[in-house]
């Protein structure tokens, strides 16, 4: 099994962006299926598919399927052959081909993202953004601090609900309760955390923290040779797939504006 947890998060992000750009430029199903299968294979050998990540993919699969049938039914193609009907919808062969390439594009982007998030530690990602992407330490530490608030949100919510129950024992109809509950809970929850953020900002300033200061770090995420090799390999595999597709005559690249 391949381990990519110890690679620089920026290297993984860069590889993801290269794949994203390649996917957006490709309009044929064969190349997209090859990229999709390669991404799935990479996900399998890095053990990236867990119950939680597969669950997170479900909405994206719905979107991919919707893209597929809508293109099969509505895509603007030359000389379409009707291959099936469902009520008022006529599905064409060429529309289905367009839909398939876009469907696999969405799934490839989704799966590559799952691989990234499963194999990346949030703290390392932020530290890597500071070092490699020149992210302001103020924003980076602000994000890390804001994430520290997340575990306390559940306790805050319980407190807010209890306070509402004490003040307003009158029972509401289910529809009134559901429609207004999010607002009644979300506003105090946000207000509590904004107050907390202000207090933390004052505490940070009191300890000499400035937004754009030059500072040292307890832990740094450096760019190593293995990161360069990883990004180069990812780019090379994508180029090889596209080249093979072009050699076979399958490749349909990014199409310029054709008019409606």
């Amino acid at each position, binding site marked *: 099994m391949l381990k990519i947890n110890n690679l620089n998060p920026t290297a993984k*992000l860069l590889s*993801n*962006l290269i794949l*994203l750009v390649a996917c*957006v430029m490709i309009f044929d199903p064969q190349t997209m299926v090859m990229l999709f299968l390669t991404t799935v294979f990479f996900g399998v050998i890095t053990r990236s598919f867990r119950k*939680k990540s597969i669950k*997170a*993919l*479900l*909405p*994206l699969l*719905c*979107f991919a399927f*919707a*893209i597929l049938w*809508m*293109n099969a039914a*509505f*895509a*603007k*193609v030359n000389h379409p052959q009707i291959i099936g009907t469902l009520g008022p919808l006529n599905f064409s062969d060429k*529309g289905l081909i*367009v839909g398939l*390439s*876009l469907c696999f594009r*969405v799934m490839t*982007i*989704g799966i*590559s*993202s799952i691989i*990234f*998030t499963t194999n990346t530690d*949030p703290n390392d990602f*932020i530290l890597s953004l500071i070092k490699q992407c020149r992210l302001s330490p*103020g*924003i980076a530490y*602000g*994000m890390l*601090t*804001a*994430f520290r*608030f*997340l575990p306390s949100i559940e306790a805050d919510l319980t407190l807010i609900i209890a306070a509402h129950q004490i003040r307003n024992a009158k029972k509401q109809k289910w529809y009134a309760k559901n429609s207004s509950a999010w*607002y009644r809970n*979300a*506003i*105090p929850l*946000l207000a509590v*955390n*904004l*107050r907390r*953020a202000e207090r*933390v*900002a004052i505490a*940070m300033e009191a300890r000499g*923290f400035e*937004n754009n200061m030059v500072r040292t770090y307890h832990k740094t995420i450096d760019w190593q040779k293995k990161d360069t090799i990883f990004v180069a390999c990812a780019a090379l595999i994508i180029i090889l797939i596209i080249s093979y597709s072009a050699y076979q005559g399958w490749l349909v690249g990014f*199409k310029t*504006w054709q008019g*409606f």
Partner: protein
Amino acid sequence: MKKANWSLKDIMVLCVLGVAFGALYIGGVSLWAVANAVFGPVGLDMVYGIWFTASITAAYIIRKPGIAFGAEMLAALSEILLGTPAGVSVILGGAIQGIGCEAIFAASGWKKYSTPVLILAGMGASVTSFAYNYIAYGYSKFALMMLAGMLSIRLISGAILAGVLGKVIGDGLAATGALSSFPLGRERAVKSVQP
């Protein structure tokens, strides 16, 4: 061009809003999945406005150049950290949506934060995000009438779910007194003492 002069307090509040809305955005994916299953990609346009709310709310509260763009980027970053299925593409999407919102506030010189401006900012993000989806999801294959319909739905969604909802959330927060040190809170305090 005004210089983005953010204090540490602004940044901290922006980060909290970014994380909170990042979590909301991930929740929005489920809503999108339901709308998608019923209406296809048009369903995405119906709920798309949810993904611009962070920039509208943050800009309405803090009222400084770059806040709308920054809020959208931080919400995208927190989505990645929380594990979104849309993954790193949300950074690009967030930047494009943020630019759409920020452009409207920039056009007003970062001085007007009235309801029409907030609604326009939501619609601005609708336009830029639609252009991004047009390229990324191959919308060029759809007929003109269908594209016009999808864009119209997204504009309405941006106006209501981002513009109006962003203002409602900002006003709700101001009413709690938590924004007393921010421009929105100060504006409220001045209004409350005026006859």
